[in-house]
């Protein structure tokens, strides 16, 4: 028992991602302001807030889609912690297709709609140098199975899939190279409630099995309660509260969080 708890403490002594004083402005308007936090291996961080709170801006800056005005984003690479804001674009994009994954809210933004499901899953493998068709296809079949898509549909295009299947395909396409950090922007948004549940279960299992770290941006408090270990609440570009997910939701300290939590219908 004690051995186990020590193992957990040791495995995650160095943060995988360290964000320091990240700021992004849109002219006079504040995107996100002076944000600092750590994410450790195997940890899921939820970021909640309403539209315009800066949570999507923050995610874009972390994933390298947008350049912050100030601040540092240290990612633990094989060569030690590297500031992804300062590194060259070539290196950042290499991280983006190996160690990182990005799951878009709309699967159409994250999939190649004109390419078969197998090609979509195989792309990241080919991007990092896989050159054996049989192996690539075997990986694709394996991953379709893991996200509960019938292997018989490997040669169909995503446009023939339902919204939930498209989202699962996007996840398979992202996780096939075993990334260490997954950025998710409203991953369950736009899906039916029953489809959401299946996706949540899938994500939980993958996070656990692969030891993934994830940053999930959402406005859905039920989603973060089930997925996130820790939570940050954003308002007007600032983090107004942070902590253990159930602590923030059950005993919110900040005025805004109390309003947010009390505004949700209890089911």
């Amino acid at each position, binding site marked *: 028992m004690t051995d186990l708890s020590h193992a957990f403490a040791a495995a995650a002594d160095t943060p995988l991602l360290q964000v320091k004083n990240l700021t992004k402005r849109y002219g006079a308007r504040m995107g996100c302001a002076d944000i600092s936090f750590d994410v450790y291996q195997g940890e899921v961080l939820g970021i909640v807030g309403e539209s315009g709170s800066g949570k999507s801006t923050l995610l874009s800056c972390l994933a390298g889609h947008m350049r912050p005005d100030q601040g540092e984003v240290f990612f633990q690479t094989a060569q030690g912690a590297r500031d992804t804001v300062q590194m060259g*674009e*070539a290196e950042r*994009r290499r991280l983006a*297709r190996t160690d990182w994954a990005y799951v878009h809210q709309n699967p159409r933004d994250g999939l*190649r709609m*004109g*390419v*078969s499901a*197998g*090609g979509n899953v*195989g*792309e*990241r*493998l*080919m*991007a*990092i140098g*896989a*050159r*054996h*068709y*049989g192996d*690539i*296809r075997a990986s694709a079949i394996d991953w379709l199975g893991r996200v509960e898509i019938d292997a018989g549909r*490997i*040669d169909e295009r995503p446009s023939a899939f339902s919204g939930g299947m498209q989202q699962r395909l996007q996840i398979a396409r992202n996780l096939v190279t075993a990334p260490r950090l997954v950025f998710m922007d409203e991953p369950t948004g736009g899906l039916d409630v029953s489809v959401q549940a299946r996706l949540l279960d899938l994500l939980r299992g993958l996070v656990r099995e692969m030891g993934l770290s994830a940053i999930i941006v959402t406005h859905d408090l039920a989603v973060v309660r089930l997925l996130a270990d820790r939570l940050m609440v954003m308002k007007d570009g600032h983090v107004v509260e942070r902590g253990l997910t159930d602590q923030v939701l059950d005993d919110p300290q900040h005025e805004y969080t109390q309003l947010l939590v009390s505004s949700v219908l209890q089911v």
Partner: protein
Amino acid sequence: MTDQAYNFAYLDEDTKRMIRRAILKGVAIPGYQVPFASREMPMPYGWGTGGVQVTAACLTPDDVLKVIDQGADDTTNAVSIRKFFVATAGIAVTEATDKATIIQTRHRIPEAALTAGQIMVYQVPIPEPLRFLEPREVETRKMHELEEYGLMHVKLYEDIAKHGQIATSYAYPVRVEGRYVMDPSPIPKFDNPKLSGNAALQLFGAGREQRIYAIPPFTHVVSLDFDDHPFSPSKANHSCDLCASDTSYLDEVITDDQGGRMFVCSDTDYCATRRAAGHIGALGGQTITEKAAE
């Protein structure tokens, strides 16, 4: 029309200089697509306006020009481009590969080996090999810059998934000198091996897309493939019915409504040269019209 109606080879000198600069840059960065200010030419896009501009910029009064279309010297496109340069530059023309100093081509590389000092000019419809899967120009340029070429293999993967083999049979993508992935223009993949280590300077012009790129002599060019689906330059499993060559690229010619057909070299000069040297194919040197008349 007077002699002064056109500058030599139609284009004005400033334009030719601009194109030559683009060509020199292309030669310096093999396989890299150099943007250039493509001019309106007195022919429609798709008729080889890019190739014509490159040829015009390379021509000197002493050059001997050969123009081929699908391997043949006598098709409409080849004939009109040849006439165009005779009219605007007054240069000599030929159908013999070994006599030409500049060869403008659409869809083929001659069978006869090219030699040092020769220039091949390819007409290119779509220069961007990544365009098939990535429609954003900004993104494809970034992909070239960062050598992110996984997408090219996605295209080949899709081929195998759909057809059981790489079905791309022309415009088959290549990697030039281990760096840029390049569209070799719509030549059959049978011709791809000739791109590599060729003694001639190979220039590619895309008029509508305003791009010029180049393969300098003796550049290493590799056709993309998978370990378990290696590149293979295929041709019809047949020999030429006219000249008996079993190594040249063949056209299949339908000769009647009863399913009659014959295979003939697509390179007309190569075929004629062989027949003149006494090689006789299965149809005994009959011409297509004679065969049809039977």
